[in-house]
């Protein structure tokens, strides 16, 4: 395994203020647009029943595979006569919920393992980090496939499988941050002053670890969405007739020669969301990660 090089001593910068974020956004038009796009997806997901013209599983028996056109089905229908626009809007719910859920599991697992490893040191740290090495030895999708083979299919199973697959990278960064904080003079001072160890962890270590973790979590949401929709695309993630984009793209694959919109519409929705999230992620990273600032 390639060794992780720890960034040079010195704490990450204090969290930027909201005003700072706003100043950044104003000078980066694409960042602002990407934020707006991401927000639109969140709103579409939240208000899907009001925004979508049809229910996601309603079948229009008179209109199978009708192409996008002005009328009752703006973006066309699939092979079951289900409205693609509505299914795509409802799909945003699943994509965002699964992505956020999986990242929450991964970040929490990473926080626990990384903190335990970084704080304990010695044999416990060694054992935990070898375990993390093993977690990192498998690409997330392959690991998620292995978990799915035990857990079975379904939305909750996908969240769990992808979430566990994300624990590895999170653990590594958390441990790195803990080691950095531990080396700081104020932590040593607190210890010398007789502050209880648990209190030092709670008051000094945790706050300095949580923030970079939150930044990393934001960036990983798009990856979690990509992996989970990949699972559904393979046909082993979410089960039909759930309006999941990966599943819809897989279904459309069979009809690509004469009804390309069936895969095209949900695929475009997924691609646009992922691109927007990656622009947002780049902005967040640029704002909050001093390591990157130095390198750039």
């Amino acid at each position: 395994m390639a060794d992780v090089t720890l960034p040079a001593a010195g704490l990450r910068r204090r969290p930027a203020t909201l005003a700072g974020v706003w100043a950044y956004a104003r000078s980066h038009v694409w960042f602002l647009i990407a934020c707006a796009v991401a927000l639109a997806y969140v709103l579409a997901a939240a208000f899907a029943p009001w925004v979508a013209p049809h229910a996601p599983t309603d079948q229009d028996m008179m209109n199978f595979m009708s192409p996008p056109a002005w009328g009752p089905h703006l973006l066309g229908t699939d092979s079951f006569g289900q409205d693609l626009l509505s299914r795509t809007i409802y799909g945003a719910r699943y994509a965002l919920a699964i992505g956020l859920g999986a990242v929450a599991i991964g970040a929490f697992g990473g926080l626990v393992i990384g903190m335990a490893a970084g704080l304990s040191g010695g044999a416990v740290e060694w054992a935990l980090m070898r375990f993390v090495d093993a977690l990192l030895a498998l690409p997330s999708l392959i690991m998620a496939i292995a978990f799915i083979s035990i857990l079975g299919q379904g939305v909750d199973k996908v969240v769990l499988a992808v979430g566990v697959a994300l624990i590895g990278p999170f653990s590594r960064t958390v441990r790195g941050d803990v080691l950095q904080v531990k080396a700081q003079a104020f932590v040593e001072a607190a210890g010398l002053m007789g502050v209880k160890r648990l209190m030092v962890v709670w008051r000094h270590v945790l706050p300095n670890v949580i923030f970079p973790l939150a930044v990393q979590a934001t960036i990983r949401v798009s990856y979690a969405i990509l992996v989970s929709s990949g699972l559904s695309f393979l046909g082993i993630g979410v089960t039909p007739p759930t309006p999941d984009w990966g599943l819809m793209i897989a279904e459309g694959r069979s009809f690509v020669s004469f009804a390309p919109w069936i895969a095209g519409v949900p695929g475009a929705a997924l691609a646009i969301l992922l691109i927007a999230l990656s622009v947002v992620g780049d902005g967040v990273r640029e704002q909050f990660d001093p390591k990157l600032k130095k390198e750039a």
Partner: protein
Amino acid sequence: MAWFAARKVLQTLMVLLIVSVASFSLLKLAPGDPVQLMLGSEYSPEAHASLMAQLGLDRPVAEQYLRWLGGFLVGDWGTSFISKAPIFQYAFMEALPVTLTLAASALALAVLIGVPLGVLSATRKDTGWDAAVATLTLTGTSFPSFYLGILLIWIFGVKLALFPTLGFVAPWNDLWGGIVHMTLPAITLSTYFLAMIVRLTRANLIEALEQPYIAAARARGEPRWRVVWVHGLRNVMLPLVTILGLQLGALLQGAVLTETVFSLPGVGQMMTSAVLNREYGVVQAGVMMTACLFVLTNLAVDLAYPYLDPRLRPR
């Protein structure tokens, strides 16, 4: 040097050992009774007991693990209870070469196009070229490969009818057929890496070109192409090899999805159908092969560092 290498090898073996324990647990954790599944309609309590004994499943778990590991190392990966064929034959001899061919083609394509694009972008920094390449790389790193594959099928397979869109032809049997069948899958899989390589080449080359020795080379009157492609690009080698090692996981993961788009009978298809058929032995084979490939490549990358960069040679 020997000490450094030995430590790396030991570390790698340790990781593989943990992965093997985890993979073995996969079979143990899997719901359902594998023996019952294997017997199918011929089930009887006596047959069950005798098959259990025959497979060594009545032994302590630790002994089962060691037997399993020993078997794995010599290519005895068990038998598929659907096709009744040895899993090793199917997974290692048939599926793995397909995935490796796809991955290698995609990687080659990404390097061959990515490095020149990165050079173009770095030498024409802050021009329209640079901006165009930046937009392409941003799209490339976040575009879902399986959707890109379908778009390519639609454009090049259906609309223009230039390429076949399904199936695998082994290039070692039919070179031209192999290349033609591999073109769209390789483009699909390469996009992400292409974008990564462009970014990496650009960033490292820009930094390298600001070094004093580059100015010195220019002052000596060396032609510009030589300065960029020889002196400058040498600095891109190390990060390039690093990223290829670290991103191999992403490559294998992308290959799994790409195979499904183009119906290539590789490891991805193998694992997917194994999950659906509850063939845990095959899932396990896929996990072990991927992990070995990933970990061993990273070992190779670590061991290659001192050769690529004299500064990293331990004294």
